[in-house]
């Protein structure tokens, strides 16, 4: 073992030690929100096939539970997990420690108190009814201040980097760190502080929603994929010279694609047409990214069997491609005339948030957390349960939402079904798909519980003296020649 390797090794240990508590705190919050949001989501789903379920109280009426669940998953789980992963990876790739991490605890507290107040606000009747901006106005400032602390830490870590080069994951993290606060504050100002008039409101809203999914969640998921593939497979990213092109093209086209959510809506037609055209352009980066990621895996699919992180990342890659295809389809008039405003448009957003982003974060968590706590995962059957339920749950939800949405769209467009009886018939036709969705969501929730228990065990083990300390192998250096994974698998 040469001394340089040893140095790198101890540096990494130092980085992990500096990131330990902030990252664990963000992960803990994230997992708690994952469960809270999952329960709310399950309730909302059950209400669709049993409308009387919890309908008696204003706090749990369907119209409030749905946005509450969505906000809990996006701002609670999604953002906390992204913070945890983003800060850790930024520190690792910039080869510098996270300094003054104490401020990040303050940020975590502010952020999560803000989200709790926001969710209670939605349930209590202060919803603004703008998609993904439902949380009442007073939490905006709390969230922005908390975000500023996290974002500044990420960016500072990047700017004091000790490395000569900048890797693809860093571009995505860096971009996302700036894009989110900008689009969030623009949307807040244009919708709530100094509201624009008329249909400009839905335009701003669609622009924000597209931005949040496309310029925050997808970049974070891609940062994870670009990092963990070479990291675990031990092989450089295939056709990496195309990656910068994909990054810029993806960001520029996504930023303009928001209008496609308003296809058919009473907004100037150029808004949705521009969104549609931007979606055509998105084909290029999606193909390039798929070449990068799947190309790296090609010939190494055996590695999936050995690594749970890689398996989650693989799900995330599939989710990314699936969501991109669906997004493209929904930008076409013919398909949108049927699928727009049905469960299929819900499916698109869910694919990004769960199948693409959340799975990437699960993969990252399985890799990162043992390095922070210095302990192995206590139960591999819980890990397997988590992966199994995630894969099965995603499959069930895709089927339920796609088939349900397709039926729904055709019934809505079938004028021979009288409007008076349409929704009764629709509820009957869709109830099987709604039930399937509830089963899928319950499965996912089961997996999340397994994840939480394992996480709890692990933090417990960290404090107990006689638990076994995980011993990580010193990672070999990546070489330009193709390396098979089995090599060095001692």
């Amino acid at each position, binding site marked *: 073992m040469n001394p340089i390797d040893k140095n790198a090794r101890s540096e*990494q240990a130092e980085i992990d030690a500096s990131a330990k508590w902030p990252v664990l705190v963000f992960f803990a919050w994230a997992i708690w929100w994952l469960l809270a949001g999952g329960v709310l989501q399950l309730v909302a789903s059950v209400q669709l096939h049993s409308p009387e379920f919890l309908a008696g109280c204003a706090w749990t009426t369907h119209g409030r539970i749905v946005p509450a669940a969505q906000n809990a998953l996006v701002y609670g789980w999604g953002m906390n997990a992204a913070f945890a992963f983003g800060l850790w990876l930024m520190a690792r*790739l910039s080869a510098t420690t996270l300094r003054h991490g104490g401020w990040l605890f303050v940020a975590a507290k502010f952020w999560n108190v803000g989200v709790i107040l926001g969710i209670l606000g939605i349930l209590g009747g202060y919803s603004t009814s703008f998609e993904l901006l439902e949380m009442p106005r007073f939490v905006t400032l709390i969230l922005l201040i908390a975000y500023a602390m996290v974002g500044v830490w990420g960016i500072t870590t990047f700017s004091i980097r000790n*490395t*000569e*080069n900048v*890797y693809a994951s860093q571009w995505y993290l860096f971009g996302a760190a700036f894009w989110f606060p900008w689009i969030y504050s623009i949307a807040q100002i244009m919708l709530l502080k100094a509201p624009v008039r008329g249909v400009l409101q839905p335009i701003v809203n669609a622009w924000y929603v597209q931005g949040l999914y496309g310029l925050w969640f997808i970049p974070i998921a891609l940062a994870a994929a670009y*990092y963990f593939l*070479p*990291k*675990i*497979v031990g*092989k*450089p*990213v295939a*056709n*990496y*010279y*195309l*990656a910068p*092109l994909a990054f810029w*093209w993806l960001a520029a086209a996504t930023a303009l694609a928001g209008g496609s959510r308003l296809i058919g809506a*009473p907004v*100037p*037609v*150029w808004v*949705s*047409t*521009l969104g*549609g*055209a*931007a979606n*055509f*352009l998105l*084909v*290029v980066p999606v193909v390039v990214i798929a*070449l990068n990621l799947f190309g790296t895996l090609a010939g190494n699919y055996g590695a999936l069997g*050995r*690594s*749970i*992180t890689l398996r989650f990342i693989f799900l995330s890659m599939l989710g990314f491609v699936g969501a991109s295809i669906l997004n493209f389809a929904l930008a076409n*008039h013919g398909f949108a005339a049927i699928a727009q405003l049905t469960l299929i448009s819900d499916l698109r957003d869910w694919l990004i948030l769960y199948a693409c982003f959340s799975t990437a974060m699960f993969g990252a968590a399985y890799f990162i957390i*043992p*390095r922070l706590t210095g302990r*192995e*995962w206590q139960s*591999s059957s819980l*890990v397997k349960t988590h992966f199994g339920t995630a894969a099965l749950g995603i499959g069930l939800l895709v089927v339920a939402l796609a088939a349900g949405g397709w039926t729904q769209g055709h019934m809505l467009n079938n004028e021979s079904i009288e409007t008076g009886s349409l929704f009764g018939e629709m509820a009957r036709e869709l109830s099987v798909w709604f039930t399937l969705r509830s089963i899928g969501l319950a499965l996912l929730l089961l997996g999340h519980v397994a994840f939480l228990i394992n996480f709890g065990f692990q933090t417990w083990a960290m404090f107990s003296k006689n638990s076994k300390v*995980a*011993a*990580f*192998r*010193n*990672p*070999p*250096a*990546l*070489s*330009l020649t193709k*390396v098979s*994974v089995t090599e060095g698998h001692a």
Partner: protein
Amino acid sequence: MSSSPDNKYRFEEAGASDDSIQQVHAQLRKQMPEKAHGGYPFLPLGVLGMMCCAVLFGAIYLANYSIRFDPLVVNEHAKREKPGAIVQAPVSPVMLGKKVFGTICITCHQATGQGVPGVFPPLAGSEWAQGDEERIIRIVLLGLNGPVKVENKDFNNAMPALGTSLKDEQIAHALTYVRQEWGNKAPEVQPEAVARIRAELGNRSKPFTADELLKIGK
């Protein structure tokens, strides 16, 4: 070490160090694929071709369906050339009259034009409504007082004068609506006719009576 089959998911081994990932990829960025057998590499050309196609299709799509970037157009299949001067699609007097009727006349004569039996006379099928316009214009302008026989039923009530609150066009449109709705069939009333009668009446403000009206016109 720990990768024995029974606990392989306990933690993840890294296959490459961060440092080497950075360095190798920095090198790879500059490194284009080797030319296979002296020819051009397929992939960059393929990507370039895809980029050109996407831009071309995107541009055509945008040009085709943005309809002059007109803010008021919501239909992507609307006419692409600008309609010269915006032709105000003609609105029929009946449509306009329905609006006047719906705000004023409807209170007594009802949306069905049936009136209220014994209180307000019907307009649907009424010989007055479909009769000479000279009479009904006068009724609307100055009102009608006292007994009147409509469709063989007697009514005795007062209709208020509307001449001061309605313009000639509005009166003409409302009357046209009444004369052509509910199966009524009678010619349109022109605003000029209302203007002429308004002028003839001068400063008279006394409401008409049915007897008085029956002497006018046919």
